[in-house]
């Protein structure tokens, strides 16, 4: 894939460029601030832009605003947002538009190289990827009366994986259960959350997260 990388830390940028190039991707531009990112996206039309939330000049949410701008101006460009902290507010703001080709991950996830590259592929293919931490945080703030509070621990786990954009087969593999068991859990989740069944996993993620973010 052709990628653009935006992060103000040179150290991080260099490391990630190496990592991505070793994985066979082409990093067409690596920039350190939001205006540079927007210009580079316009110039190179990458498959995916990997963006740090915090960038100069303000060091507060510049990357997120730039990401939203990219999604509006160039819906064909995937955006993978990296953040030092997981903020559910950021997640819901990103989800305000179309969910295709969108990712939001904790920055540390790049160290889990294999999974990070998979997530990147999914975003590049138009999928949606959310950090399991986002789901965990949302679950943590639910109450008993909340439908989310009625999820079993196993179902919560499945929900985390759903949010990461994984298909049932992949979830089954990771949780070491059968695929039919996963299907059962997914249906239970949808039932408990009162969601109609919709085909396509990015839509599942969207549905779940929209509900959670509301």
């Amino acid at each position, binding site marked *: 894939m052709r990628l653009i990388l935006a992060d103000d830390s040179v*150290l*991080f940028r260099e490391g990630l460029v190496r990592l991505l190039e070793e994985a066979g991707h082409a990093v067409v531009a690596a920039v350190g601030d939001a205006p540079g990112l927007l210009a580079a996206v316009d110039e190179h039309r990458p498959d995916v832009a990997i963006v740090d939330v915090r960038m100069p000049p303000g060091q507060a949410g510049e990357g997120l605003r730039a990401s939203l701008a990219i999604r509006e101006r160039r819906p064909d460009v995937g955006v993978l947002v990296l953040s030092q902290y997981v903020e559910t507010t950021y997640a819901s703001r990103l989800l305000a538009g179309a969910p295709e080709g969108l990712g939001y991950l904790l920055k*540390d996830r*790049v*160290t889990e*190289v294999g999974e990070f590259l998979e997530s990147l592929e999914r975003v590049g293919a138009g999928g949606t990827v959310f950090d399991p931490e986002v789901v965990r945080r949302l679950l943590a703030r639910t109450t008993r009366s909340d439908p989310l509070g009625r999820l079993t621990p196993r179902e919560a786990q499945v929900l985390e994986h759903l949010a990461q954009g994984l298909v049932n087969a992949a979830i089954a593999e990771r949780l070491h259960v059968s695929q039919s068991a996963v299907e059962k859990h997914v249906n239970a989740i949808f039932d408990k959350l009162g969601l109609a069944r919709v085909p396509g996993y990015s839509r599942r993620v969207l549905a779940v997260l929209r509900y959670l973010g509301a």
Partner: protein
Amino acid sequence: MIVHTAALPFRADPLGAAESPSCPVSVVNAVSRCPPEGGGKVNTIHPMSTTPRTNAPSRPAPRSLRAGATAARTRAPAARGGAPVARAARRVAGLAAGAVTGVVELGFLGVAGVLFVALAPWPAGRRAARRFADAGAARLVALERARLAAWFDHDTGRMPATSGYGYLALRATAGTVASQLALTGLFLGLLFLAGGVESLLSGGSYLVPLRYPGVHLTVDSGPLGTAYGLGLLALAALWGAATVTGERRLAAYFAGPGEREAMRRRIEELTATRSGIVRAVDDERRRIERDLHDGVQQRGVALGMLLGRARHGADPAAVAALVDQAYAESRRLLDELRSVAWRVYPADLDELGLRAALAGVAERAGLPVTVRHGLAERPVSEIETAVYFVVREAIANAAKHADAREVLVVLSEDERAVTARIRDDGRGGADPAGGGLSGLERRVLALDGTFEVESPPGGPTTITATLPRAVREGPGASCA
């Protein structure tokens, strides 16, 4: 090993090799090479200051700005007193001016009184007379304030309009008489002295017979005139000094803050410095977060990425190289973590005291730093910490922004305050409102200290923090 600086005698020589030969402190004697004082932009901030600082670093002309000069603060006469002769001359000039203004004031009060009486029957006339009188009184009071400030080294606060008349009436009568007497004594004394000395020198003296009951004396006119003149001058000097004191007291009585006023000011000051310190704490936390985010966390992620790539790699040689890099990165991460922790708070400071902690700062400064440690004993903890951070920040600024070649740090004390002065030979133009400096300022002000940044474009930069040794007493302490 614990070294108590309290046990160390006063020493003027720079910190360094003599005390800790094993420490590679880069210390040079920068004293002679540091540029002389003065001539630059001065920005003094008192705790009471609410005035915005307006001196931009780009302002070319040297300019002195003293914010927060309030009624309660009388600048020490020594600050501008100069030589005794010059001071005496200024006092005499002030008395002479006072004699003149007194006459003017008497005239004004007379005219105002007559106007009041004459225009009393008509409301419009009364109002006009009132306006005239108020405007005149305000002007005369301002004139008196200027006179007191210029010649008697006495800054009074703005006088409330209502007390202006009382002050003028008292000052115009008593002040005028006293000034006239002092000046007359001075004039006569000088005349006698001049006559006596002249007749002594020229030899043109004659004998003066003095006859009192039981006393029959014949005195030479030369010594008599001289003695008479000297006596009169001494009396005039005493009387003049008393007049000056009286004038100052009178002005302070009418203009000076009452206890309520002093209390109100102190509360204002405490409110301001309290919110200042809260902001300083927040700023510091922000800095720590940024330190962690930009340094430690990035290195941690970089380290993780190296290990992740190593785990992912197929070629054993490449994997080995990545592990080597990861190891080096882990060392850097630990260095970074240590330095962040040190920036948050140096454990040395509590354990070893200011002297050792500042030696540590000097070692890490990256440019030659001379510390002249003139404190006989360790200040109390909060003062010590404030001094430490002021010095460290000033050195960091000198190295980072001012492009300085060397830094001189002088710590001194008297019975009331501890002063830290840091001077570098860099290019100046430091912004006192900038992040680091304003945080320090807030910290210093919260301890009732003063913080001064003098940094004209082109340098040099001098930062001075003065911190009281003891906690300030009640409101009375602020109004001298």
